[in-house]
């Protein structure tokens, strides 16, 4: 008996240790890096010639970058959902998903911060935010809460990693690996004795509790960037809740996609099982319903009253130039997933993967639809301005930078997967023993 457990332990470790990229992996990293490089070149052009290289002008003064920012913040929220909420609710099945959720969260929050800097007209004055920051500005709230969230997420990735790092250091297959120095730097102090485990468990519990209000804070504050203005379409008291429900949906979509890819790429069918997909599917349905509810209250109520100001904005969304995008988004990111996922067959890995992609893409477009049309409908008419000021379609530089940031996020996730075990080894073994 002892022997079989030891053998199975060996097997688990073998299965879960980080592995070198295969051909596909290398190609994937190569393509992502190329996209990032193009993005960097576009950013260089923007630094040199000014924000004029974008298609933004005086009316649509926030565009693709800000929608991308909101998207990243939304995605990042999933870390807290999977790690903290499910953990505190004592849901055991989510263990193999926690790490990947944290990795997604960290990558997303990093690029959320970066894309905001990209959006600044004067990035070299970033320090002014600290030197002259004024607490009544929602931007400062965002800076505070994003930084906090980033650090908590890092710790939530790091602390549960410690036992695994010990395994990585000790195991002969990884002992000669190039990341060995990094492992030693991060975790050589970890002995795994009861004292250390007690401290770490306590710390993780505290972090799980603190990250929930911070996570709600981060997306609420992001929604308040909009809701503190008077603009039609943003001037809503519901915006915080609306954004958070959307964020949970988007983030779980991202986790589903990542689950599928990792499982395929590393053949982890035993660890990320069909059952996981099934359960995630149920969560996604629930979140889609909640988000749909908020969408209805967000658009139906103003549409019922049709106040002046809202009028032009809503007509444009429902039946005007934006109608196709608007309805497609609602359909792709909420209605269709719900229908698919209601059937047990729809919650199998492949359909789930497709649903995940739909949800993520829908979420991205949704952010764009929240940001841009509102700016196109100011209170006073657009007047005395060149034609290019009256519409907005991102320039190639904006696309390149936005795609670069998305690729960068995925690259960070990929690298983290390469360096650290994607499914927690230690916890898996513990659970195995417990059974």
């Amino acid at each position: 008996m002892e022997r079989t457990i030891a053998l199975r332990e060996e097997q688990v470790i073998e299965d879960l240790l980080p592995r070198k990229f295969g051909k596909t992996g290398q190609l994937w990293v190569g393509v992502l890096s190329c996209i990032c490089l193009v993005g960097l070149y576009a950013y260089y052009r923007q630094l040199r010639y000014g924000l004029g290289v974008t298609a933004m002008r005086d009316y649509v003064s926030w565009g693709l970058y800000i929608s991308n920012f909101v998207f990243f913040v939304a995605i990042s929220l999933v870390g807290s959902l999977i790690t903290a909420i499910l953990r505190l609710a004592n849901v055991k099945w989510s263990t193999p998903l926690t790490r990947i959720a944290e990795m997604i969260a960290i990558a997303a929050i990093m690029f959320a911060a970066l894309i905001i800097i990209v959006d600044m007209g004067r990035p070299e004055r970033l320090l002014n935010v600290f030197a002259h920051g004024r607490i009544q500005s929602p931007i400062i709230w965002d800076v505070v809460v994003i930084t906090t969230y980033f650090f908590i997420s890092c710790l939530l990735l790091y602390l549960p990693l410690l036992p695994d790092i010990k395994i990585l250091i000790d195991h002969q297959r990884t002992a000669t690996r190039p990341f060995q120095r990094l492992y030693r730097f991060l975790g050589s102090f970890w002995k795994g004795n009861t004292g250390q485990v007690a401290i770490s468990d306590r710390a993780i519990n505290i972090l799980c509790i603190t990250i929930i209000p911070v996570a709600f804070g981060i997306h609420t504050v992001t929604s308040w960037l909009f809701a503190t203005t008077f603009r039609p379409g943003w001037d809503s008291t519901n915006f915080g809740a609306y954004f958070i429900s959307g964020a949970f949906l988007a983030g779980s979509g991202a986790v589903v996609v990542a689950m599928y890819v990792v499982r395929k790429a590393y053949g982890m069918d035993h660890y990320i099982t069909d059952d996981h997909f099934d359960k995630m599917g149920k969560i996604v349905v629930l979140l889609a319903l909640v988000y749909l509810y908020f969408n209805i209250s967000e658009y139906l109520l103003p549409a019922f009253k049709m106040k002046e100001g809202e009028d032009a904005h809503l007509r444009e969304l429902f039946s005007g130039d934006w109608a196709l995008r608007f309805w497609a988004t609602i359909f792709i990111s909420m209605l269709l997933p719900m229908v698919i996922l209601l059937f047990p067959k729809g919650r199998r890995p492949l359909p789930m993967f497709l649903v995940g992609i739909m949800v993520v893409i829908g979420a991205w477009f949704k952010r764009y639809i929240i940001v841009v049309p509102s700016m196109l409908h100011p209170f006073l008419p657009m007047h005395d301005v060149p034609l290019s000021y009256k519409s907005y379609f991102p320039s190639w530089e904006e696309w390149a930078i936005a795609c670069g940031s998305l690729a960068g996020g995925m690259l960070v996730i990929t690298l983290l997967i390469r360096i650290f075990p994607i499914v927690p080894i230690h916890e898996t073994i513990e659970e195995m023993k417990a059974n």
Partner: protein
Amino acid sequence: MSELTNGSQSRRAFLSGAALAAVSAAAASCNHLKDPFSTQAAALDVTPTGEKVKLLSVDGEVIEVDRAFLKPVPHLPSVTNAEARVGIPGKKFVMVIDLARCKNLKRCQAACDHMHHIQDGQNWIKVQKMQESAHTAPYWQPTTCMHCDEPPCVKVCPVDATFKRQDGIVLIDSDRCIGCRFCMAACPYSTRVFNWNEPVLPKEIAKQPYCAETSVPQKKGTVGKCDFCPDMTRRGELPHCVSACPNGVFFFGDLNEDSVTNGAETFRFSDLMRDKAGYRLMEDLGTRPSVYYLPPVNRNFPIEAGEENDKG
């Protein structure tokens, strides 16, 4: 001196030039090669050209100086940044725009664009064609920054780059602005413009240090907007749009003195508001603008009169 700029700047330059010239002239009489009063006396090896220029000295005497001793005076902002942030004590500036008089001539806009070196395609004053509803008469409505008393733009600025002074004027410190454009999203009157590219400016202007009171020079990656011309007000003169409008549409004045003027006529502000039913734009938003409008009543010209100037 004649090729120097016009207006106040030339006056200041003229006076300091005269003082300098007077000093130089005195120097020239005792040592016609060196200027002993200059701090850079050693470096300043001036050979008189023999060409004399007539100048007005500080005590009002006309004096003659050799051209070689004339030095251009570097531009100095009218006030320091700290002073510009405080404002003019005891004042509360207001503007009144009489919609019944506006023919969309756009002289206000031209003067403003010219004096503030605003970039092509952008305007700080926009004359909008307004129509309340389908069956009511259209009219021209000039809009400037409203210099709100509860300015949403100031509330949201993360670095205090746009600020409200005690005299009610909202200004921008281009040296501090990080270009986040939150203020543009927050301003319900859409009055702010952004310098998307490096502004195209005459060399001398671009070289000047930024002055919040003149809003000159505009800088790449920062916002700009109507500033009520506090540099003019400080000298007791009217903003450029007010003096440029031939129809006397714009009135400017001090709420504490309860008077506004368009240069030709002066009114008691409170009487004007009461008698002509003054109002402000989007009162329901609670921004409490400092720009008041008089309704477009009794217009003795049709709206079409301004249509040819309308750039849409």
